[in-house]
């Protein structure tokens, strides 16, 4: 057996998963068959009084089904694989002796379903231990018994709370919801698991108040409403999962498992699912990407220049990733405001249980602020995030070069200015690179790594590895106006503003794009970004591409009047406590005419598609995959459509093909 080993020397059998030549354990057909064999040996051995399942990998218990296998499977193969998994996990659940899962590391998807088929689950208290069922994020649902066993184990409402959004929990949270029974130190994990054997076979838990047809129906209808508001009905997987999970609590295991099978085969055939799985692979690719010809240096100490929204957002994110940060701004008041916003982010993180009190306090400690031109010789990376003004940036970089060691990487977070212009004012310009983070930094996974003509392979390699280290997704882009994401996004935002000028209602414009699958309408997005910031990028692009880009008059008017969006409380919409409460009536009064939103989504997405094509042709990004990943992770472009180029090909909106199908 290659994927696992079975040890039956003692009175408690042990199955240890250890897939060869891989850092992860996954389930494919051979792995499931081996597990099946091992279980049959356990069944046959009357001397055994229990079974413990564990993993030999340092950071993964079982990462779930092998997605490559899943993505390549046709309908028949898929059915067979699901049936095999269901049968093997049933065999585990039906053992005469108690089975205990000793979970250290990622235990997700099929791994979690395996654990659910055991009688008892104990997890290590390690930060690497994560348990959950993320299937709906890939457009499918847990179909190896997870949709059936989880609600019966922890109750319908709690199970829906995990399965519908596709949640993955830390050990402590998993214990609170009952997904695991105990959390112990890693070194004691297997010993403790063996002790749990003496608790015997587990009895089915009953939830008489929740799991009766009436209550289940009520819970289901409420959850359905929530899912529909969240997804606008664009994602079939959570809705399907909701049906299967809700009915599981009043059905037999076999009936529920066959529902899982029907649902997953149906979902797997849908285009949304293929796109979501495709995106998963693109993310993995960006996470692992290496720059040829460059050896990355490890960054442990960094400085951020400028304590505004971006600077403090970046400083916060780095500090959460164990990087010591010096946050500098010439204005002590700006430093204090930046620190206050960072403290707020940590407080929110604590509320969402991302940090406990101690790790939040240590994170804050990693940031030191100063208004002095302090020496930066012990910093391996400096990220400039000052105002978008080339003259100011040049002045800053000239100063930085003097304060840093000659090998310190100098990065700018500019969103549109030419990076190469900064090379002139520094020595060793090969250490210059652009690191364009997106606002809000803690939410958006994308970082555009801008390769200026001076940037060396070593600098680029370090920049890409750094972005990966801090848990973001790097996309390497050329030093062209607006880089990649803004270049594609601006024509779309400008067109939305023009449609507004022509008399279309702002809500109608935004609703059209929400229905297309955008996370936020374009006018709300402009308000969020700030009309001044958006206008600045639009100007840069209009100057670079005068043939097709322009800045609509309305943006100028709004900037002049101080209607800068949410931060000023008024933009296209009015805001109260940061929430939009209706259109800006004074702005509505400025325009004449009335127009509807007919054809709006095709027009606006068409603009993005055409600009994305140009970016591909001009080499702004290296591949269609990079462009699609950047647009989904940087702007939230409807993930189930796979990105603008993927969508263009699928919907036949372009005569070209960007992906081999």
């Amino acid at each position, binding site marked *: 057996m290659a994927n696992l080993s079975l040890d039956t020397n003692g009175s408690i059998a042990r199955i240890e998963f250890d897939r060869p030549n891989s850092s992860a354990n996954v389930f494919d057909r051979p792995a499931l068959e081996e597990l099946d064999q091992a279980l049959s040996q356990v069944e046959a051995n009357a001397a055994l009084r229990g079974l413990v399942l564990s993993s030999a990998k340092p950071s993964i218990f079982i990462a779930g089904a092998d997605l490559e296998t899943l993505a390549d499977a046709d309908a028949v193969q898929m059915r067979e694989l699901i049936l095999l998994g269901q049968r093997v996990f049933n065999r585990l659940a039906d053992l005469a002796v108690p089975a205990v899962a000793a979970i250290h590391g990622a235990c997700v998807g099929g791994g979690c379903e395996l654990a659910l088929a055991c009688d008892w689950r104990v997890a290590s208290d390690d930060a690497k231990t994560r348990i959950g069922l993320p299937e709906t994020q890939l457009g499918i649902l847990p179909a190896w018994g997870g949709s059936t066993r989880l609600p019966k184990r922890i109750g319908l409402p709690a199970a829906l709370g995990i399965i519908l959004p596709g949640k993955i929990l830390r050990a402590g949270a998993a214990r609170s919801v009952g997904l695991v029974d105990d959390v112990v130190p890693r070194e004691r994990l297997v010993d403790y698991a063996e002790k749990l054997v003496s608790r015997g076979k587990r009895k089915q838990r009953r939830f008489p108040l929740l799991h009766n047809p009436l209550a289940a129906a009520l819970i289901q209808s409420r959850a359905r409403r929530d899912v529909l508001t969240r997804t606008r009905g664009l994602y079939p997987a959570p809705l399907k999962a909701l049906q299967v999970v809700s009915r599981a609590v009043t059905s037999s295991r076999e009936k529920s498992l066959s529902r899982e099978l029907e649902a997953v085969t149906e979902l797997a055939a849908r285009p949304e699912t293929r796109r979501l799985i495709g995106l998963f692979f693109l993310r993995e690719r960006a996470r692992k990407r290496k720059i040829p010809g460059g050896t990355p240096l490890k960054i442990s100490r960094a400085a951020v220049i400028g304590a505004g929204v971006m600077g403090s957002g970046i400083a916060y994110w780095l500090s959460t990733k164990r990087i010591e940060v010096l946050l500098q701004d010439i204005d002590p008041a700006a430093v204090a405001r930046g620190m206050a916003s960072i403290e707020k982010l940590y407080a929110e993180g604590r509320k969402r249980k991302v940090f406990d009190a101690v790790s939040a306090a240590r994170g804050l400690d990693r940031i*030191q602020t100063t208004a002095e031109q*302090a020496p930066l010789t012990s910093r391996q990376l400096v990220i400039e995030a000052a105002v978008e003004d080339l003259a100011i940036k040049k002045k800053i970089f000239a100063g930085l070069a003097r304060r840093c060691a000659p090998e310190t990487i100098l990065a700018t977070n500019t969103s549109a200015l030419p990076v190469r212009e900064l090379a002139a004012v520094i020595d060793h310009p090969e250490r210059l690179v652009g690191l364009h983070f997106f606002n809000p930094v803690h939410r958006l996974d994308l970082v555009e790594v801008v390769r200026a003509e001076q940037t060396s392979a070593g600098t680029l390699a370090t920049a890409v590895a750094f972005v990966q280290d801090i848990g973001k997704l790097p996309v390497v882009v050329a030093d062209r106006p607006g880089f990649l994401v803004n270049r594609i996004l601006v024509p779309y935002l400008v067109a939305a503003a023009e449609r507004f000028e022509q008399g279309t209602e702002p809500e109608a414009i935004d609703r059209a794009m929400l229905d297309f699958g955008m996370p936020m309408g374009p006018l709300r997005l402009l308000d969020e970004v700030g009309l001044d910031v958006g206008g600045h990028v639009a100007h840069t692009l209009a100057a670079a591409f005068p043939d097709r880009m322009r800045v609509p008059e309305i943006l100028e008017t709004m900037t002049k009047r101080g209607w800068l969006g949410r931060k000023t409380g008024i933009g296209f919409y009015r805001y109260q406590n940061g929430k939009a409460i209706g259109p800006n009536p004074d702005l509505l009064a400025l325009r004449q005419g009335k127009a509807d939103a007919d054809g709006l989504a095709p027009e606006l997405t068409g603009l993005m598609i055409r600009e994305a094509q140009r970016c591909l042709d001009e080499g702004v990004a290296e591949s269609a995959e990079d462009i699609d990943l950047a647009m989904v992770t940087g702007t939230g472009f409807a993930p189930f459509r796979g990105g603008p180029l993927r969508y263009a090909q699928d919907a036949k909106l372009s005569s070209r093909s960007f992906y081999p199908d």
Partner: protein
Amino acid sequence: MLLFAGVRTPFCKAGTHLAKLDAVDLGRAAVAALLARTGIDPGEISEVILGCVGQPVDAMNVARVIALRAGVPQHVPAATVHRNCASGMEALTTAAGRLATGHGDLFVAGGVESMSNLPFVFRQSAVEKFGKLHRARSLLTRARVLAAFRPADFTPRAGLLLGLTDPFSGLNMGETAEVLAREFDIGREEQDAFAAESHRRALTQAGALREEIEPIALGGKPVSQDNGPREDSTPEKLSRLRPVFDRKTGSVTAGNSSQITDGSVALLAGSEAAGKRLGLEPIGRLVGWAYTGCDPKRMGLGPVQAIAAANARTKLGIGDADVIEINEAFAAQVLAVLKALRDPEAGRRAGLDSPLGEIPLEKLNRRGGAIALGHPVGATGARLVLTALDQLRTTGGKRALVSLCVGGGQGAALWLERL
């Protein structure tokens, strides 16, 4: 030993701007600012040594907690030192001792005190009852112990007041100042004038003081200034305050005593070789120092013997000093010290065979002293070193003499030299 850099937090009256920060937060702010301003790799530090008088109950060896939180890596050790009001100076001279004996070559030395956060303690009567309650097993005994509590058990004793009382002589620090005012004939008017001058200097030198400070960001606003100095602390206004420690015949008031304050100071010091290795420019040299003992009832006279001893060790005299800092615990106490240094008769009473010389007031505490800026006891010793070095820089002077009186009956004095 060379000094390379120094920085402090603003000094803020207890219960005001910095009250929400505990001693660890304050110390972390100063040490982290020192590391940021010098830009050194903190892994190069041999040891972090900090003075702190009121050790926080939740951070024993506060220097270690501060060092770790300021980004000093865990392999660097840290020690907290205590010599009451001279703790911040003790940290620096301890570092010099470590350097001299080959126990390291680069030190963060300084001090910290959050007088806002000194604890309140239960009375012994209550502590005993809590102990019994903890041990009580049966419901009946528990009820009996509970019934024994009296309202007076719950009146706490302020750690601040206990700390400012010398347990050996039983005198409060202010009472020791009253002793000196009586014995050295220091009048109320003279004390108030001295206090008013401290405020005036601190106000006119606010710009220079800001150079010593790294602002602390709190609630979205920077705290960048000391808040002790008052425009309205004129001799006339001060004369209206009532004596605190001897209400009937005394002369020591809240206005002519040092303020109760929160603050922290961090200095970077080490060998010449360490400075060269890290590319640090020295700002001064520690020439020599002395600690001496005296009568706890007259602890305010401490500087007299300490200065004499430091002079003897360094072969320097008061006339060699371009900058002089004597901590203003109380105006009466500083004035008594000055008198004992210049006046043969007063000097004899302070144990001097012959006077050491007159200290010119224009050289003494040019940026104001603890009466205006406050006296966070663990930090003050290091603040005096920081301000003396910075004054040498701005005045172009060569040498500075720094001295403090120490609760419990000691004196501390130290000579610095600009390079």
